[in-house]
């Protein structure tokens, strides 16, 4: 796997993708004093944030028989069409954004089993949210459980029936368990 520094254009695209969904200035805060790099495998680029002091180690030629697999804090994955945030970064994101959907205990449990969010599970939401918007899904203990895509404008949620779909599950922390079978 190849490790590369990110050029400014790619970082700008990723920043824009994050900020369009979750609010202005967030990518800068996530970056802090770290540097973005990418590990490329086929057409997937996994984006990591690393301290500057690691540069000499990670940018050196990797000896034969060794390959980088993961480096530092995982920000997300860039595929052909879009950038997807990593589950690892979500607790950091939660401190920076109001684009959240708070769900009941039952809704939270279903969500971590890969299910989507129905109206009956909703406890709180930002009334400004729009259809298609990515939101962090949070339980009543303020734990971030994953990301959902809103299937309706927030202002219409009140008019929906209890069993209507409100948020489509895009990724949830149950993946950690499901991935390992």
């Amino acid at each position, binding site marked *: 796997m190849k490790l590369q520094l990110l050029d400014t254009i790619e970082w700008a695209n990723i920043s824009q993708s994050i900020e369009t969904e979750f609010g202005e200035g967030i990518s800068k805060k996530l970056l802090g004093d770290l540097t973005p790099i990418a590990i490329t495998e086929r057409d997937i680029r996994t984006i990591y*944030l690393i301290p500057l002091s690691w540069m000499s180690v990670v940018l050196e030629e990797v000896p034969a028989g*060794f390959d980088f*697999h993961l480096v*530092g804090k995982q920000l997300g994955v860039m595929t052909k069409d879009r950038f997807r945030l990593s*589950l690892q970064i979500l607790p950091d994101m939660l401190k920076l954004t109001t684009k959240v959907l708070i769900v009941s205990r039952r809704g939270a*449990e279903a969500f971590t089993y890969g299910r989507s969010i129905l109206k009956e599970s909703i406890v709180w939401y930002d009334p400004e949210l729009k259809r298609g918007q990515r939101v962090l899904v949070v339980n009543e203990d303020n*734990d971030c459980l994953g990301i959902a895509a809103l299937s309706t404008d927030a202002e219409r949620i009140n008019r929906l029936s209890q069993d209507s779909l409100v948020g489509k599950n895009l990724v949830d922390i149950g993946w950690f368990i499901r991935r390992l079978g």
Partner: protein
Amino acid sequence: MSRKELREKAKILAKEHGYLPYMIERYLVLWGEKETLQFLEACEKPLRTSIRVNTLRADQEVVIKRMKGKKIILERIPWLDSGFYGDFTETSTPGAFLEHMLGFYYVQGVPSMTTVQVLDPQPNETVFDLAAAPGGKTTHIAQQMHNTGRVLAIEQDRQRLNSLESNILRCGVTNAIVYRGDAKKIQALNIQPDKILLDAPCSGEGLIPLDPTRKTSKTMADVHYCATRENEMLDAAISTLAPEGTIVYSTCSIAPEENEYIVDSILKKYPEIKIVPIPLDFGSAGYTEPFGVHLDESLRLARRFLPHQDGTEGFFICKMIKEAA
């Protein structure tokens, strides 16, 4: 007991308890009949479930309170900073709880947690974790270092890298560099770490209480094969370690050939390597004369976990330092 009597006794016990006879024969020579029977009995008992609270994701008190709310009472393990026993028999498996998915804890055996506590990694150090998957020790090292410095985790197996990656992400570890590669060739990385943890891939003879198939799945040739690989890995690790650095060598085998014999040969090859005492109160002393073979006296400073004495899986832990030239 004569050799013939010993063989006969071993054959009977092996049949009775479902082991390969060579294993029982070795236990009888190593421990005598009374202790062998205690060992065989202990291996039939389930081990207590233990977890490590991951302070990178949550405070201990928060986790204790939340688990109590789910009817799981956590009981502190005396010599461990973050280790707890938990009784999950009346509930879901420990891996199914939300707090586990959130990375608030790692389900981990007591000896595994102990190896990292023995290594005692400090903030801002550079630490190698060799044969690192599935990542229990890598994430524990990062926790002890408060996500500062660097943990270089090396793993060769592609499938096992996935579990290592998952656990690193779940536990919020951000100071890890994971390499896929052969731990026997780490000198090529050209990095001299302050500390190394080598929990070497082994025959797993200590895991019988967790995996009864181990009673019959490995021959003596397998033990020798593992011992050769362990020797090569420890040799490579010692060569890479910085002067005044610390290395912890461990296995989940109870065979002296994979433990004390390996360390003894390293002590002979590298005079600058010394075994140091482990300032934690657990287990029993390493062997200095297993099967009548005289080994370095300092091996008594190594520690062993044994199912019949400690109620854990069998394990060996040895802490060494590399003296400056």
